[in-house]
């Protein structure tokens, strides 16, 4: 993933999970983040679709459980 797209993804995570400046979005995962519920996943997908002009299908959505997974998903779409 190029640096611009990585920065956009970090901004999405910051906004969706309302992260403070002291939290590194890249460390986020669904298991440890209390705000990461099913609604947050839906918001995350909608935000990624909007910012990167991609479609995320249900199978891909199931894999979305960390910043790294989101990055890998976008990598897989050539971003």
């Amino acid at each position: 993933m190029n640096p611009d797209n990585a920065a956009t993804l970090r901004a999405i995570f910051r906004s969706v999970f309302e992260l403070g400046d002291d939290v590194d979005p890249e460390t986020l995962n669904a298991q440890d983040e209390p705000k990461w519920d099913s609604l947050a996943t839906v918001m995350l997908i909608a935000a990624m679709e909007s910012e990167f002009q991609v479609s995320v299908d249900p199978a891909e959505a199931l894999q979305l459980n960390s910043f790294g997974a989101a990055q890998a998903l976008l990598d897989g779409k050539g971003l």
Partner: protein
Amino acid sequence: MNFLEAATLVRGEPPVQQLPFLLAMSGTPETLELYVRAHAIRRGHDARLRTLPFNTLPQTLLSPPQSGERDVFLLLPWDLTPELDWRSGLPAERPVLASLRRAAAQRCERLAARPNAAVLYVPAPVPPVLGIPRDDRHLEHLLMTIAGDAGADCLDGGLFSLAAYLAHGTPFGGNALSAVAEAVVAAALDRPAAAKKVLITDLDNTLWAGIVGEDGIEGVSAAPQGVGYRHFVYQSLLAGLQRQGVLLAAVSRNDPDLARGPLEKGGMALGPEQFVAISANYHSKSGQIAALAESLDLGRDALVFVDDNPVEIEEVQDALPEVTCLTFPSSDEHLPGFLTRLNELFPGAVVTAEDRDRTAMYRRRLAGMVPKDLAGADVTEFLRDLQMRLRIHDRTTGDHERAVQLINKTNQFNLNGRRWSDAEIADALAQGGRLYTAELADRHGSHGEILACLVTAAGVVPALVMSCRVLQRRVEQGFLAWLMSRYADGAGELRLLFEPTQRNTPLRLFLRELSLLEDADRATAGELVLGAGQVPQEALALFQIEIG
């Protein structure tokens, strides 16, 4: 509007004026809420929306509305006939078309009778419940007609996303949320956005196919054939709008005579007399549009700007947020939606004699005005936001096909107009010359190799060209600043073999900026000496320079 832009708007101070309303839809509304709030803010309102618990839309229809609150119903086919819900699967027994029609009509009657309600209908594809393709298609049309008869505003069916709906119950994918939210806010405000008055169009690859500065007047087309067709259809719509009183104007980064050429030549649906103004120069388009609005004495919110280039669209939107900007479609598939949107912005009305004469009236007004100096908008901040990367390739060895192609087909930003053969380039390189190209990318994607420069061993530049697609991005400054830094240790200067041509005005304006020419219009051929410190270094900060 994308997600981060919407989130930024919503994080700011909300407008004072509140907009309380119920957003009634059967799917999950959470992803839509952010965009609804953002679009309301854009229209000066703080949206206070109430949403329904999941799957309670039918009960809401049976309950009286809350006092003082407007209802906006956002409906899909299965909100009219529940048997059509994709999430329920197909019914065990095939329903009868007449009973589906009856159920939909009854529900729509209730909607139509509901006071203070607005209805938006998204004609999403329905599952094949009737089992006969013709009947299923007929059902889709029937439901749209029933909804329309009940006063619903039908949105584009393509806004629906089956993947999003099946995955998490929200009927719209992330790419469609902004458009849906914009319609919801317009419905909640109980009035469409005020009709626009002026359509300002780009010329190259928008009003016609091709770039007049490169392809020539004969090389561009808006004829009803081949590549010109999309532009012919666009022009025919513009001609109709102009007849109903809409003012047409054009802005272009071009020489004025060249820009008017294709229109004056004839053979297009539009002629120059149908435009209230054709602004062609090398200032930013936002600067040209702002000056035009001032000359016409019209508010910027009355303007619609159409351009095929997303960067130009963003530059104008950034500098003039009141202007409605539309991107001209890059494929025929997107043409219908684009034309529909234009028609929405300029709703037809009874055409009066004054409407018909409006263009001539404004042309007379402009003819009596003293031309203004177009300062143009400062786009530095905008360019910084583009996060541009300039990858410079040394093509001295290996493949230099693209470099030769660029040198031989570029007219506008061309140092001298000289054409080079492969053998001549090879000869110059064999004598110690170097051939560079530059590839530009930004956060919108790659623009490919857009600049080529040949430098001899003695620091003479006999060829320097850049694609006109990236003229406004200061690539030329960034590249020359980089090149000077390479040659500073050697000759310390570069000598540019300049020659004016009929079309290289952009290049001459750039040389004037560098103080190498006094007058861009009266320049003569010669060797121009570019010393260290003559190229502004600020441009370098706009780029991440990479060596390929």
